[in-house]
């Protein structure tokens, strides 16, 4: 075991898979010599050579398309889109091509690619470095969508994603790269080295996609969340003094329905939290599955806490971000309803 932050854990996941499988190749903007603007691929070109870790033109559509072609040949590409906000030029290749290739060819061809992309706000990145577009991908049949909340999960999930034979969009909440940010931006950040989930095996291990984690067991209500908001929710639970069960989905698609349903049937109350905008966000799908599966167990209306339906405003970042106060208020409201 070693103390790792999320950047190091992601680096270790790629390193581990590259060592085991010579068909794993890494490319994207600035990922080669420089090792990525967030340093997630640092040292990999030096270790594996520039034929396996290389820079790409600034062309997200080109990155995604060539990754599909490489995957069709038999490689296992791990690409980086520098910010999730820049993924849209690649959208057509992901939605129309990668996601449907297996289906349209009757299984003859498939695209075993992984797209890593830093997402989320809280770093004063403005509207072009802060978005959480995960629901645009969960809506596409044929794509898997993952978002880890800590270094341990990040490594295990990324290894699984890379070895998966289907395309996986792997969103990395950049606000928690260095520590479990709980939404209290006015306080210093606790580093991952002081957190249990910052203890990461150096060796190979996998965490299955579609298996949520109960990060805090509880009886009074169920909180369903993922990414940065896991830590915000834990802080809000303390603040609200509610015995909540907090579920970290880890993978949005496939979705761990059993864990969600078991928990909500037990507690009878549910709050759903994500940083992304509200309308048609992943929370809408979560509300639907809870309603479909747990209606007769619900004792209160389900609540959502999300980013507002506006672009991410630079100066008003903390008015936008769904922080612990907003989450705590929803927890109390649902607990007392």
């Amino acid at each position, binding site marked *: 075991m070693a103390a790792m932050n999320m950047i190091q854990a992601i680096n270790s996941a790629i390193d581990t898979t590259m060592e085991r499988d010579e068909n794993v190749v890494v490319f994207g903007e600035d990922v080669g010599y420089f090792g990525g*603007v967030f340093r997630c691929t640092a040292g990999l070109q030096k270790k594996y050579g520039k*034929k396996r870790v290389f820079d790409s*033109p600034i062309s997200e559509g080109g990155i995604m398309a060539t990754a599909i072609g490489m995957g069709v040949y038999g490689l296992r590409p791990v690409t980086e889109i520098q910010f999730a906000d820049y993924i849209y030029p690649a959208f057509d290749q992901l939605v129309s091509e990668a996601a449907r290739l297996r289906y349209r060819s009757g299984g003859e061809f498939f695209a075993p690619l992984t797209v890593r992309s830093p997402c989320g706000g809280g770093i004063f990145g403005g*509207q072009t470095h802060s978005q959480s577009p995960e629901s645009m991908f969960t809506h596409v049949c044929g794509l898997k969508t993952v978002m880890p909340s800590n270094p341990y999960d990040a490594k295990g999930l990324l290894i699984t994603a890379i070895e998966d034979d289907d395309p996986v969009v792997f969103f990395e909440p950049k606000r928690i790269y260095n520590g479990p940010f709980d939404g209290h931006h006015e306080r210093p950040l606790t580093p991952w080295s002081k957190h249990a989930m910052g203890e990461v095996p150096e060796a190979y291990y996998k965490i299955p996609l579609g298996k949520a984690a109960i990060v805090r067991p509880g009886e009074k209500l169920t909180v369903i969340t993922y990414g940065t908001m896991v830590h915000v929710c834990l802080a809000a639970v303390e603040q609200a003094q509610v015995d909540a069960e907090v579920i970290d989905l880890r993978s949005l698609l496939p979705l761990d329905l059993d864990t969600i349903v078991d928990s909500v049937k037990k507690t009878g109350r549910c709050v759903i939290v994500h940083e992304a905008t509200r309308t048609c966000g992943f929370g809408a799908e979560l509300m639907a599955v809870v309603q479909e599966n747990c209606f007769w167990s619900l004792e209160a209306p389900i609540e959502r806490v999300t980013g507002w339906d506006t672009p991410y405003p*630079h100066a*008003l970042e903390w008015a936008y971000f769904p922080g612990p106060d907003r989450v705590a208020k929803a927890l109390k409201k649902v607990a007392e309803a």
Partner: protein
Amino acid sequence: MSDGTTLPPLSLHIPEPKARPGEAPDFGEMHLSPAGAVQRPAATAPETDLRFYPYQLIRVLDDEHQALGDWDPKLDTQTLLKGLRYMMLTRAYDERMVLVQRQGKTSFYMKSTGEEAVAVAQAMALDRGDMLFPSYRQQGLLVARDWPLLDMMCQVLNNHRDRLKGRQLPVMYSARDAGFFSISGNLGTQFPQAVGWAMASALKGDTRIAAAWVGDGTTAEGDFHHALTFASVYQAPVLLNVVNNQWAISTFQGFAGGERATFAQRALGFGIPGMRVDGNDFLAVYAVTAWAAERARRNLGPTLIELVTYRAAPHSTSDDPSAYRPQTEAAQWPLGDPIDRLMRHLVACGHWNEARHQALTRELDDYVKAQLKEAESHGTLGTSKHSPDSMFEDVFKDVPIHLQRQRREMQEG
């Protein structure tokens, strides 16, 4: 039929810059046409007569600081001094705003150091009514259009006086009254939008033209090719500028295709003129821009202009170039510094001297400091609170019902 058994196995080419940190910068393979060597064609020349230009480098100022050849725009001294002043003001502004960022008064900044001639000379060669679609490194366009520094500073500081209401990342200006389009932050999106604006101008029988800027790296984006296709098909009155500053963050221009062809050569396949110019030569940049603008105004269609320069500064305040390129590279850039070159030309012509230059440097620095003091009196990022209510405005023309509800929810805490 090839006999595969006799050939060596395939191998993939991965571009590599000439020098990395710790190595000596190497610009030996850069083809530099001597100043004055490339002839200026008539602005009405057919495209078929211009196919040689993408392989050249149009230069006016020589190493002795003389203006040579028929590309010399023969600007009067007042105009040259104005250009020098705008470039120096842009640099003084950049230097000051980086300090402001380091002091924690804003989150981010991007300098244009070494590239000032591109924006300043091009803005001066265009008409005030022409529409500009910049990337994030053409602050000199605003400076050369006499846009108030105070307004720019307030945007960077995201304070009360920021017309963009604190919504945008610093330097992502928008200045409609300056004919300066809102900067996106996403790369290259403005390039085909400029073509659309130019198409509209032509559709409506207007006289105004458009100009757009991208970096060398952004030429790899699909939007670059969309722009060239539409500009060529409709012969839109637009100047499509590629600022080849050699580096896209850590990625050298070879990863955008610069190893195989010049960026100006991209024009050939679209049947539009491609001009390649020394981007640090104020006179050459001015002349080529004026030539392309005249062509566009005569309804002779678009021009792709590659401006060869060097990004002397980090990509942004979040970047550290010492990790990927030799630290001495900027100093050894063979096309020099644009301010220094114009200054020396003016001195050589007897219109300028060291004392006046130093006095102007001080004057501009004092001016920037005074403007900054005023700007900071309106607040800085974090100390200047925009009303959170304003967050819900301008998503749509009117605030729709669901956003009214969310605003109420926010107000209730």
